[in-house]
């Protein structure tokens, strides 16, 4: 529905400016993550990601090596003046306008810094190598010493997430479409009651079901394997998918089915040969929805899949990394971006369907 735009040209600049500012605020978090994920580990810990852009800052012009036995509790003499340890830690102005600051207290090394233009635009793919292959890498620490650390292998988790997501998208939508067809076009007892049940379950919080279902799964041996998580996601995604498919399928013209039925088609062939192809647009939009929901899910995987490496999904893996290596920003940022790749690809590739999926569910009426 295209409409004539810009009713008030006078305020348009203002509108554009405000909107641009909001968009900028919205973008900054993601941009920060993306930029950081390409920066060397030591850079991330030392300077903010925005310093990759040209900016004024104190640049080290020279270094002073104090005697190794300098007592830090006493006033420290540098270039004929004395400073305290605390001053040198924060950085202190010397008489000639330069700033003196510890480079390394233990090594008694002082930087002489002067303001200058600087760009910390040093980019690397090491972080991604670190999270994708799990290779060990060297980390240069602020004091110059090196430390080796093991990366975190996300490729298995990535694969697992695909194994979880594809069936957990296809299965519920197939089941929901069958049900939607029956609700819309077949006659059977309790049709309305059952449909009301589906509608009611639309908003029932997941948490209500977790304890009993998890007990059942434990009894059936479904905890911690893919079948279990497919069933769980299928069940939890069904109400929305059924309702969504119902509202599409029920609006298809009636004569379509009648003529097919006259020609001797069975309900099953009508459904697979006629309904499914016709419903492709709405199947696409609900699939995107379900796929993103499953891909991004954390709670359901946490409960039904557990933390075993062979089945662990990306969201769990990254959440664990946040817990155990909260300061390993070089790994965390790269890992987070790896986990965002698929959803963002789906989003940018299919956003028209994605939006239609949203509207199908909520704007009606």
């Amino acid at each position: 529905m295209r409409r004539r735009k810009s009713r008030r040209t006078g305020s348009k600049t203002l509108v554009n400016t405000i909107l641009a500012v909001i968009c900028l605020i919205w973008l900054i978090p993601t941009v920060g993550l993306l930029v950081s994920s390409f920066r060397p580990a030591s850079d991330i810990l030392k300077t903010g990601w925005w310093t990759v852009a040209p900016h004024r800052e104190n640049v080290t012009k020279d270094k002073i090596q104090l005697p190794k036995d300098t007592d830090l509790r006493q006033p420290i003499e540098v270039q004929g003046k004395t400073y305290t340890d605390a001053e040198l830690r924060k950085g202190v102005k010397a008489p000639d306008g330069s700033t003196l600051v510890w480079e390394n207290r233990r090594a008694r090394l002082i930087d002489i810094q002067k303001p200058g233009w600087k760009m910390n635009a040093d980019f690397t793919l090491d972080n991604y190598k670190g999270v994708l292959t799990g290779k060990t890498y060297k980390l240069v620490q602020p004091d110059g010493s090196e430390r080796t650390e093991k990366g975190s292998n996300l490729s298995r988790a990535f694969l697992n997430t695909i194994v979880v997501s594809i069936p957990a998208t296809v299965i519920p939508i197939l089941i929901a479409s069958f049900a939607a067809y029956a609700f819309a076009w077949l006659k059977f007892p309790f049709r309305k009651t059952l449909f009301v049940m589906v509608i009611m379950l639309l908003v029932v919080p997941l948490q209500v079901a977790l304890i009993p279902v998890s007990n059942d799964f434990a009894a059936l041996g479904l905890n911690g394997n893919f079948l279990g998580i497919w069933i769980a996601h299928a069940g939890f995604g069904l109400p929305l998918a059924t309702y969504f498919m119902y509202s599409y399928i029920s609006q298809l013209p009636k004569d379509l089915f009648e003529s097919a039925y006259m020609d001797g088609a069975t309900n099953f062939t009508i459904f697979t040969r006629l309904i499914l192809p016709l419903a492709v647009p709405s199947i696409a939009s609900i699939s995107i929805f379900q796929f993103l929901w499953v891909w991004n899910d954390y709670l359901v995987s946490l409960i039904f899949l557990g933390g075993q490496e062979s089945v662990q999904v990306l969201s769990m893996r990254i959440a664990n990394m946040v817990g155990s290596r909260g300061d390993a920003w070089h790994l965390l940022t790269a890992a987070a971006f790896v986990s965002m790749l698929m959803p963002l690809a789906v989003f940018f590739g299919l956003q028209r369907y994605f939006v239609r999926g949203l509207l199908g569910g909520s704007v009606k009426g």
Partner: protein
Amino acid sequence: MSTASAAKRSMPRIALWSVLVPLFNVAVHSAIFVFLRDSALPPVLYAILAILWGVGGVYSIYWSFNWVIEQYSDVWKRRIQPFLFIGPAIGLLAWLLLIPTIRTFIMSFQDASSSKFVGFANYAAVFTNRLLLTALRNNLLWVVFGATACIILGLLIAVLADRSSFERLAKIIIFMPMAISFVAAGVIWKFIYYYQPGDEQIGLLNAIVVHFGGDPQAWTSMTQPWNNLFLIVILIWMQTGFAMVILSAALKGVPEDILEAARMDGAGEIRIFFRIIIPFISGTLLSVTTTVIVFTLKIFDVVMVMTGGQYDTEVVATQFYRQFFMYQNFGYGSTLAIVLLIAVIPVIVFNLRQIRKQGEI
């Protein structure tokens, strides 16, 4: 399959098939399940097989059962076939949502190990225990601040975008966080809120504070209870796009001639907005609000990833998780889930009314 040929089929044969096909299905699929579970295949091969089985299996089940039903006489076929079509859906829903709700409700009146009934003791505990009360308070904060901000910002952006010269781009930018998982968003925002002592800050927020001469803060842990607001910001960042897209569609449905007529009468833009546009889209506004509220009530991942519920940021869902998994207290866990359910009942009723109005049931 014509009526005549179906009628000719002998009863014993149909009965035999009706038993054999389900048995065969169960046997084959359990065999594959066990094989896949215990196999040590290379991961990629395993992934392909698992996906094929998962997707193909469901279709083959429908297909084979339908084949059996097609053998029946027309009267029975017509009676049974609808149940084949809705059966799996209803079965799954009953098993995974409906019956669990009832079981959870019963468990909420039982003790920690669900072995004996304790009446309303769990409910009394939930509303007196400090930790659980904090969780309830925080959920209220999330709904009040989070949902309100999402709706207002979403509406504002939708209105602005409608009049701007880069509507599509702006909408994509605002909407994009919807595609990002809460866990990834947690990493993003943890980095923004990152705190370290001293003047050099690598977290954006603290860098700004320091730049303007302030002291860096540990945003998500200190400054209680305001730290909750910093977590809520993440929800706003992620969910505003949702509200915006739907409200924007509704805005585009406001007939141009009504707006034109109002302008002719000399009404200002702000007056038009509150007197014409808002009433016109009120239905959508209400349904978006309820959707966002339901979503916000269930909030879990953000808190789990950002603070793990420490520093008084616990919400009902994280408390639920803790009671259930760490303390194995099924009584408290169930009670919290039921409290959450009670909170969304008005939304369920609203939903049903809305759909009934559309004449679908």
